């Protein structure tokens, strides 16, 4: 793969930007130097996660949010907005159908917008690290807001949402996914909750149910004793971080009709207000620190593993595996022999 000039990316060369994202997705070794060259120019963008059940209207909402954000505030230049739209990779074929752009036609022709669809590719932990790397590139390219759309199912997805400074959880009436949402821990990570499709029957009920659950969750988190590192807690350290009381921030519930652009302006206001809240309370810095800590830890883990595999004799591994299969010794003892 040809080299990409980091300066081209910082100067707004969209082709170079796009190619850089591909390099990252493909785990091309060249992407490492590029990320390192661009990292000093990051830290500026407001990362907004938009998550929720399939079909809740996330893409339609993101289209509206981006259009609204591009209006900017009076007397200020319009912010540049990037969108990362994640859809699942088929575990059977490795292929993916990435259809989020269908709903984002309103953004066509705007050079202040960059939309990239991304397949989850099912790599354990890979999705989160690719998304983080995407954010590095887009941030350094001068995008002021980066919106990340993911379905809120599965731990990897929740992990991505918590990469964001501001997490918007989208629900829709009558989808029966309220219990699901709680299970996935998704309400706990919400900074803002949106009940979309307010034109549909049952919107009132959904709002009421969410209110109750939210109050329960808030009441619970105070008394919740999170012990040790097991189960969900170990997998989702970010949820724990979120459960720390956020002084002065109670997740507001918004209602929208994304297809008609209704309720968008106040939602945008709250998203931006949340960003300011984080900056004022010092939480922005704390989140950055927590995120970078996780990034570095993940990199250490991956690097050590790679290094070990490179030195490891594959035959020896297979022999030991055969022994374990015959119950000669346990996987734990196998590791002791191998390391």
């Amino acid at each position: 793969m040809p080299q990409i000039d980091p300066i081209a990316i910082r100067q707004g060369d969209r082709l170079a930007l796009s190619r850089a994202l591909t390099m990252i997705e493909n785990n091309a070794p060249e992407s490492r130097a590029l990320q390192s060259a661009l990292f000093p120019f990051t830290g500026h963008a407001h990362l907004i996660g938009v998550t929720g059940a399939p079909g809740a209207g996330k893409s339609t909402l993101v289209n509206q949010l981006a259009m609204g954000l591009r209006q900017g505030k009076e007397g200020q230049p319009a912010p540049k907005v990037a969108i990362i739209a994640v859809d699942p990779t088929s575990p059977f074929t490795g292929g993916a159908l990435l259809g989020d752009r269908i709903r984002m036609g309103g953004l066509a022709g705007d050079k202040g917008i960059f939309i990239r669809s991304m397949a989850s590719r099912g790599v354990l932990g890979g999705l989160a690290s690719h998304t983080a790397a995407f954010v590095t590139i887009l941030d350094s390219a001068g995008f002021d807001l980066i919106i990340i759309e993911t379905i809120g199912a599965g731990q990897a997805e929740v992990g991505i949402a918590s990469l964001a400074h501001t997490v918007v959880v989208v629900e829709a009436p009558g989808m029966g996914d309220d219990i699901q949402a709680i299970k996935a821990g998704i309400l706990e990570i919400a900074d803002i909750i949106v009940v979309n499709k307010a034109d549909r029957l049952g919107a009132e009920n959904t709002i009421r149910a969410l209110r109750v659950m939210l109050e329960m969750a808030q009441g619970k988190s105070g008394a919740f004793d999170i012990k040790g590192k097991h189960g969900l807690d170990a997998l989702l350290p970010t949820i724990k971080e979120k459960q720390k009381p956020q002084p002065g921030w109670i997740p507001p519930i918004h209602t929208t009709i994304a297809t008609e652009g209704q309720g968008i302006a106040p939602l945008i206001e709250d998203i931006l207000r949340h960003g300011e809240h984080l900056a004022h309370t010092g939480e922005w810095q704390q989140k950055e620190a927590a995120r970078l800590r996780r990034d570095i830890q993940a990199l250490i883990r991956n690097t050590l593993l790679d290094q070990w595999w490179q030195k490891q004799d594959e035959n020896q591994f297979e022999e030991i595996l055969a022994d374990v299969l015959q119950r000669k010794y346990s996987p734990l003892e196998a590791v002791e022999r191998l390391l």
Partner: protein
Amino acid sequence: MTEKRIRVLIAKPGLDGHDRGAKVIARALMDAGMEVIYTGLRQTPEMIAEAALQEDVDVVGLSILSGAHNALVPAIIEKLHSSGLTNIKVFVGGIIPEPDIAGLLDLGVKAVYGPGTDTQTIIADIQHAMQRSSR
């Protein structure tokens, strides 16, 4: 450890009102392990080139039923090239009269598929075109 996947943009330029065929192709390519970006109906040449650039696709598949292919395809290829996307492989499917096919191929279109083309043929052609260009 490069892990390349074939990325395909399936687009419907022009004004024709349904996209069943395009969706069938999109689905088949996905089942063949490709990452397929689908953009919906009524895409202008500008929108197609923009999506192809942002998504960094290897292949653009155009589905055209309206008969406007002789106007649309050159305009799209021109936009792709002026965006710096000179390496992208363009395939066309839909209702294309026999006499028009040679003209489209001359523009650089890799292949033209009529209604009822076996999706396996299209998959094989895309994979073949990608292998040749990676050498």
